[in-house]
C-alpha cells in the first residue's frame, strides 16, 4: 500500500510501518517554545527535575510574542527562558531576532524532520516537508527533555491545486479559499497535503503561507513534498547537504481529495470572527478599515514585503487608516532595508515594528479600539484576538492589505497592477 508524506516521515521516526489511527512513540528532531508557552514548559521540567534538552542545538526558545517586553511580568518570563537556555545549552532566539515560525525554518528545519512546537502555527515547517505540529507546553517540554513524543497517526487530505494564479492573487488567497470551503474544522486531526502543478511551481515563501494556515482548518500538519524548490531554498540557507527528496507514493491512500483550480480564484478576505467566513474582494469591497497590518508568521517574508511595497510605492496610506509593517525576522528586515522596501513603507506613511509577532497576539504594538476594524495579513481573526473583544479583524494577502491601506477601505489589489 502506498504512503502519504505523513506516513513516511512518522514511520521513519516510529521505527516501523504506520497507518492512520495507530498511536506510536516517535523521536523528535527539532523543538520550539516561545515566550507565551515556554515559561510553563520550563516550570514543568523544573518540577520533574528534568531540566535538560535531548538535542540542545535543535531546541530553540523564542522571545517573539511580547518582544521587546511591554510589562515586568513578561520581562521576568523572558529571564526564565534565558536561564533555561544557559542551563541546558538550548538555543535562545532573542528579542528582535524574529517570529519563531520564520526563524526556525530559516535555520533549523530540514525535510523529513519531526518538529514539535508550543505554538499552533508550528505547522509552517510542513512547507519544507518536515512533519511540524503544534502542541501544548507540557507535551513540548517532555519532547525537549526526552527527545520523543506520542502521535496518533492522522489520515491525510490531499489538496490538489491546478491552474495558474492570476495577477494580484496569491497563495494566501488559495488557503483562505480552501478554509472557507472545508471549514475551520474541515481537517481536524488530519494532515493537509498540498500538491499539484500550481504548488510544484510555487516559490518557497508562498508555500510557507499555505502550511502556516493548515491549523486554521484544524489540521495537525500541512505538508508539501520536498522538491527542487525546497532544495534551492536550503541551498540559499547554507543547508544544501540536508536536502532529500520526499513525496507521496503514487498509490498513497487519502481520506479525501480536494481540488482547487487556482486560475478561478480572486483576492479573498476572511470576515470577523472566524477564518472560514470568507468572501471574494468583489463581495467585500468598501468596508472602512482603521488599521492595516502587513507581516506576521503568515505573510512577513521578503516576498510579501516586496508585493506590498510594489503597491505602496508612490502612494500614501489613507488619512483615516494606520499602516503597520512587521518584517518576520531580523534577516527579512535587513534584506527589506537593502531592497528599499522599508523606505517605501515609511514614505507611504507606514510605521515599522521590530521583527516579532507584533499586534497579532493582542499584547501590544497595535491593540484595537472599541469598534475598530483591522485588516491584517495574519492567520487568525477570532473575537478578541488583537487585544480587544470589541475590535473586528479581517484577513487577506499582503497585496490586498496594501491596496486597502491606500484606499482606506477593503480594496482590490488588481486595481493597482501596472
Amino acid at each position, binding site marked *: 500500500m502506498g504512503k502519504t508524506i505523513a506516513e513516511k516521515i512518522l514511520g521513519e521516526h516510529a*521505527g*516501523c*510501518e504506520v497507518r492512520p489511527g*495507530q*498511536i*506510536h*512513540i516517535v523521536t523528535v528532531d527539532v523543538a520550539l517554545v516561545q515566550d*507565551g*508557552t515556554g*515559561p*510553563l514548559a520550563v*516550570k*514543568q521540567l523544573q*518540577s*520533574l527535575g*528534568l531540566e535538560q534538552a535531548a538535542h540542545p542545538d535543535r531546541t530553540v526558545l523564542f522571545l517573539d*510574542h*511580547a518582544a521587546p517586553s511591554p*510589562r515586568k*511580568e*513578561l520581562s*521576568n*518570563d523572558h529571564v526564565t527562558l534565558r536561564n533555561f537556555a544557559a542551563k541546558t545549552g538550548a538555543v535562545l532566539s532573542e528579542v528582535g531576532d524574529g517570529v519563531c515560525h520564520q526563524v526556525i525554518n530559516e535555520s533549523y528545519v530540514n525535510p523529513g524532520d519531526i518538529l514539535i*512546537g*508550543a*505554538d*499552533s502555527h*508550528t505547522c509552517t515547517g510542513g512547507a519544507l516537508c518536515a512533519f511540524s505540529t*503544534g*502542541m*501544548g*507546553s*507540557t*507535551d513540548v*517540554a*517532555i519532547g525537549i527533555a*526526552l527527545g*520523543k*513524543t*506520542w502521535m496518533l497517526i492522522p489520515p491525510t487530505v490531499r489538496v490538489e491545486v491546478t491552474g495558474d494564479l492570476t495577477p494580484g492573487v496569491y497563495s494566501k488567497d488559495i488557503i483562505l479559499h480552501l478554509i472557507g470551503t472545508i471549514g*475551520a*474544522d474541515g481537517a*481536524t486531526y488530519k494532515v493537509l497535503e498540498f500538491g499539484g502543478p500550481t504548488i510544484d511551481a510555487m516559490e518557497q515563501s508562498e508555500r510557507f503561507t499555505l502550511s502556516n494556515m493548515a*491549523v486554521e482548518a*484544524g489540521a*495537525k500538519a500541512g505538508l508539501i513534498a520536498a522538491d527542487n524548490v525546497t532544495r534551492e531554498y536550503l541551498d540559499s540557507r547554507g543547508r544544501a547537504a540536508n536536502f532529500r527528496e520526499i513525496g507521496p507514493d503514487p498509490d498513497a491512500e487519502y481520506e479525501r481529495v480536494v481540488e482547487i483550480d487556482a486560475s478561478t480564484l480572486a483576492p479573498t478576505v476572511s470576515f470577523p470572527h*472566524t477564518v472560514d467566513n470568507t468572501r471574494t474582494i468583489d463581495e467585500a469591497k468598501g468596508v472602512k478599515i482603521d488599521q492595516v497590518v502587513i507581516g506576521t508568521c503568515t505573510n512577513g517574508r521578503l516576498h510579501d514585503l516586496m508585493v506590498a511595497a510594489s503597491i505602496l510605492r508612490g502612494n500614501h496610506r489613507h488619512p483615516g487608516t494606520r499602516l503597520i509593517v512587521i518584517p518576520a525576522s531580523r534577516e527579512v528586515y535587513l534584506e527589506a532595508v537593502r531592497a528599499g522596501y522599508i523606505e517605501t513603507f515609511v514614505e507611504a506613511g507606514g510605521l515599522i515594528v521590530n521583527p516579532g509577532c507584533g499586534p497579532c*497576539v*493582542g*499584547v501590544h504594538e497595535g*491593540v484595537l479600539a472599541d469598534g475598530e476594524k483591522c485588516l491584517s495579513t495574519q492567520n*487568525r481573526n*477570532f*473575537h*478578541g*484576538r*488583537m*487585544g*480587544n*473583544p470589541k475590535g473586528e479583524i479581517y484577513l487577506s494577502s499582503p497585496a490586498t492589505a496594501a491596496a486597502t491601506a491606500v484606499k482606506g477601505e477593503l480594496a482590490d489589489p488588481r486595481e493597482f497592477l501596472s
Partner: protein
Amino acid sequence: MVLKGKAWKFGDDISTDHIAPGRYFHLRSNLPELAKHVLEDADTEFAGKVQKGDFVVGGNNFGLGSSREHAPTIIKVAGVSAVMAKSFARIFFRNSINVGLPALICDTDQIDAGDDLEVDLTGGKIQNKTQGTVIEFTPLPIVMVEILQDGGLAEHVRKHGDLQLSCDLPEK
C-alpha cells in the same frame, strides 16, 4: 469515578482567545490570576459564578486556535471537573488530557444551561439529572486514558520516568 455538577453552556467555535484572552498574556505565569478571566470573552459572568465541580459544555470545534495550554489549565483551576463538546480542536483536546481535565465528546444538544449532570468517567455515560436522560460519550484512546489516570502528562512522567503508554506495536 463519578463527577457531579451543573452545566455552563457555550456555543460553537469557542476559541482559546475566548478562554484565555491575549490581553492577559502577562498573567500566564500567574495561573490563579489568569483563571479569574477564564472564558471572559464568551461569558463575562462565568469566572465569578462557576462552582467547584461544574461542567463547561460547548458545541462544535471547542478550543480552536492557539496551543496555549493555559486555556484548559485555567478551566481546571477555576474548579471545572470536565469539558464536554460535540467536537474539540486537536491541540486543546490533547492539552486538556495532559493537564488532567477530562474532555468528553458527546451530543451536547441534550444538555441545557444549568442542568445537573453526573458523569461516570469509566462507564462512558453522562446522566442528565434535570432532564432524566443518559448521554453516551466517545471513549478516549487508551493512551489518553492512561495519561488522565496518572493525573496528566507531567505526573505520568514523574511516576514512570519516561513515556510508558500502550502504543500500537510494530506489525510483523
